[in-house]
């Protein structure tokens, strides 16, 4: 991760300087304290360059001035728009724009003058989030081709407050990076066993990590999850990560009466060929990110533990590989889920809901959670419905839904509620079993949610279909293209806002 430091505002003697500038009162000349200093030191070069570039300080506007003088290698001006009422996500975006413009610099000073310490911390968050890169498998890249930025010093008048804010945000950023790493890994490296091993490493953060293998899951009766897994040579796993941030250490020596935990459940299909209902070859490589829901849950648990969140939370991930083979599950097979309900498998490529069915039922039965939120790269239908800007979500709880929606607006990880209704549930009636695993094209994401709802046993629940949002083909201010870790910051925010004691 980018090394972040905070310091009192002062014009650096050398290197790169980022000026976060407010849109001018008349829309013409942007304002900012260090702008004047930089201008003076460079004999007016900075303001002349900004005028030439028609830089007005509008939100999202960014301009680079190379070697303006005074020993500076570059000045990057990033517009904040109006600072009054500015939101954290706008500051993070500004940090992201700055980081993108600093790839050729090893270190930079970022002037967050005029912003509070808490706001400066969000600028740092943006710098860090955008600087992420997954380059483990690049062996031939020349040093000059690699992004260099390693250290950013955020200049603020409220250094201690900024450090405090960053401490919590840094833990979240680490959760985001863990999630991005997992989602970026190719499937020949990240099989279920390897993914479970990476979860185990979270014990270092104080999480309790339990790993279930095929023997344990067979004994429990996870017929749906095991049915998906049986085509692959790579054994399945279920991992349960427990964070007791509220009940443990709540009082001095007195264990607090344990509140019900929050539960997050992720689909972790480490590679999805579709199984016997095999997918077309074009684009199949994307299916390495079919564990994106689990990747988010793991990143979220790391974030909660990393920032010592005062909450009891559990994360469960069902990890399987969906392969066609002589041992693979067939269309027409009937499996018995852990809940006892039977499922006719019409299409082996609708495997995610089968994995979730067993893990959700286990979760609600074993932990009686306050709510369950599952995340899954579940359907193409949700992409046809909403595209890549929003994740779709489904819920049986209006209050929790409203809270999630707001958290999405605040973090910029936007979600849109989609409907559930009995009329859709009828589409998954089976002639031979309690239900079938697909309901046809119309409302394809909805019928998947109806299926999952049959395994939540009436508990407060949200299902997030993140098929359109876990991976991005385009750079965004705080998300370089590739794995987005969508949901980590959203759910961290949801927890922080409503569920911490």
């Amino acid at each position, binding site marked *: 991760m980018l090394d972040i430091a905070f310091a009192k505002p002062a014009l650096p003697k050398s290197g790169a300087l980022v000026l976060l500038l407010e849109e001018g009162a008349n829309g013409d000349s942007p304002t900012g304290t260090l702008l004047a200093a930089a201008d003076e030191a460079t004999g007016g070069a900075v303001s002349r360059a900004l005028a030439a570039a028609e830089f007005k300080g509008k939100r999202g506007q960014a301009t680079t001035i190379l070697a303006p003088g005074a020993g500076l290698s570059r000045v990057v001006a990033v517009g904040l728009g109006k600072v009054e009422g500015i939101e954290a996500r706008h500051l993070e975006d500004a940090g992201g724009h700055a980081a993108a413009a600093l790839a050729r610099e090893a270190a930079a000073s970022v002037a967050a003058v005029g912003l509070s310490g808490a706001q400066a911390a969000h600028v740092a968050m943006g710098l860090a989030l955008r600087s992420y890169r997954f380059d483990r498998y690049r062996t031939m890249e020349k040093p000059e081709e690699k992004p260099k930025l390693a250290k950013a010093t955020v200049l603020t008048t409220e250094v201690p407050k900024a450090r405090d804010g960053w401490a919590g945000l840094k833990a979240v950023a680490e959760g985001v990076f863990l999630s991005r790493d997992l989602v970026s890994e190719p499937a020949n490296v990240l099989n279920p066993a390897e993914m479970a091993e990476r979860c185990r490493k979270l014990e270092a953060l104080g999480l309790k990590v339990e790993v279930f293998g095929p023997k344990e899951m067979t004994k429990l009766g996870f017929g749906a999850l095991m049915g998906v897994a049986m085509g692959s040579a790579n054994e399945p796993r279920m991992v349960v990560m427990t964070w007791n941030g509220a009940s443990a250490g709540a009082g001095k020596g007195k264990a607090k009466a344990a509140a019900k935990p929050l539960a997050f459940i992720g689909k972790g299909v480490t590679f999805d060929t579709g199984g016997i209902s095999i997918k077309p070859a074009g684009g199949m490589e994307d299916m390495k990110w079919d564990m994106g829901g689990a990747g988010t849950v793991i990143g979220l648990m790391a974030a909660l533990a990393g920032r010592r969140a005062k909450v009891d939370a559990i994360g469960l991930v069902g990890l399987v590989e969906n392969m066609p083979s002589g041992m693979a599950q067939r269309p027409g097979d009937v499996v018995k889920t852990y809940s006892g309900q039977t499922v006719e498998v019409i299409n082996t490529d609708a495997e995610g809901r089968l994995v979730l069915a067993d893990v959700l039922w286990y979760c609600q039965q074993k932990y009686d959670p306050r709510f369950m939120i599952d995340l899954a790269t579940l359907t193409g239908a949700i*992409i046809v*419905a909403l*595209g890549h800007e929003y994740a779709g979500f489904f819920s049986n709880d209006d209050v929790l839904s409203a809270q999630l929606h707001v958290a999405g607006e605040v973090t910029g990880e936007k979600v849109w509620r989609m*409907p559930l209704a009995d*009329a*859709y549930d009828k*589409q998954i009636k089976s002639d031979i079993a309690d239900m079938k695993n697909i309901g046809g094209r*119309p*409302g394809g994401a*909805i019928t998947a949610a109806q299926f999952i709802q049959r395994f939540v046993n009436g508990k407060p629940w949200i299902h997030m279909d993140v098929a359109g949002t876990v991976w991005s083909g385009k750079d965004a201010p705080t998300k370089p293209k590739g794995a987005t870790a969508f949901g980590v910051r959203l759910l961290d925010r949801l927890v922080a806002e409503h569920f911490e004691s």
Partner: protein
Amino acid sequence: MLEVRVGRTAPAATATARPMAEGAALPEGLRAAAAADGFTGAAGTRCDILTGQGRVLLVGLGSGNDEEALRQAALREAGAQAASALIGVAHVALDAHGLSPQEAAAFAAGACLRAWRFERLRTRAQEGAPRLAAIDLLTDTPDSVEAAWRVASAGVRGALFARDLVAEPGNVLTPQEFAARLQPLARHGIAIGILGQAELERQGLGALLAVGRGSVHPPLMAVLRWKGRIKAPPVAFVGKGITFDTGGICIKPAEGMEHMRGDMAGAAAAAGAILALALRNSPAPAIAVLPIAENATGASSYRPGDVLRSFSGKTIEVVDTDAEGRLILADALAWTARQHKPRAMVDLATLTGSIVTALGHHHAGLFDNDAGLAAKVTAAGLAAGEPVWRMPIGESHRRDLDSTIADLRHCLSGRLLPDACHAAAFLREFAGGVPWAHLDIAGVANRADAEPLHAVGPSGFGVRLLDRLVATCFETA
């Protein structure tokens, strides 16, 4: 529509339908039969009993209908159940004793909606053809029930008018025939104007003209006006009226193309809604603007890559000629906004396959530029039994429409695209500053399965929603 009489007796009826709440006590003579059949009054269930006094059909209302709106919805579905079960009986009594006038009217409305069939093109009697033609609505308070029925029946008639249009095949219902079918609305006090091709050219509705160019039946735009009584700008309904959609040069696959005769369901619904307002003499001024064209594959068809100049002045790059609905709506919306300055615009269109993948057949997609209007439309849909679900127009959806040659392109090509959102983002550009809602009814306008309130085929979706919307939100200045 069924002939409906409100009265205390039903001498001509040979069967009686009685609604029954779950767990309610039954009269002595029916108790044993109902028990033998396991009938408890659960929603969606019925029990057909032959007694010494004639045939009695018990229809379950379910439980928990403690709000008036829920009771009306349950009775509407019960009436539909009755019509479905007794479709072979010519004259049926609906027992509305003990119901409020509005509930009684909902009971009859459900029966009329469910009993509708389109038999005009059959020349030979079919075995088992529907015979249900008349209903006696039994009540002790005929005057108040009659008054409630006058209101409810307006929406039903409007919906059935729309269905009759939607059912007609493309060789019958050309744009010119569509316009001709609107003429009889004049006798209800609706003013009808038709803008023919020459007028469209004069006014510059270039997008509508381009879509219609491939057909030998030229495009037109129909404008229906209901004056109302209050002093306020009109509410506008804009409906997509593609009388047949081949897809044009981007021709559709042959399989299922016959359903494209129903691609004018939005226009039909908008016309039906105006009829409903007129029939119940609504005080609200309203207009329906119906861009009507055939999207044919021909030597003069517009092409992918063409750039059109729309009525608004904005230029549009055509990507896929099968995304023609948003083009004709773009002109109609911009024209309506400029010429009539409405207080709100609602458009209806069988617009995208994407909305069917998104929401299936049980909600229409709702997009808007005004959250307040969206909430009103949602509430009206719920009350009318025509549910809608609000969908987003995100920044990315609009950004995706940036064109390399024109002001915007009207769709994208490729797989797994949020085309319903793209279409809505496109339409929003033409709504001017008018509060606007867009209903993508592709999944609900025409059904391969019977639904509670209609047989297989057209639903008339939107008519009763709009009628309700006007009644609750636009009848005061």
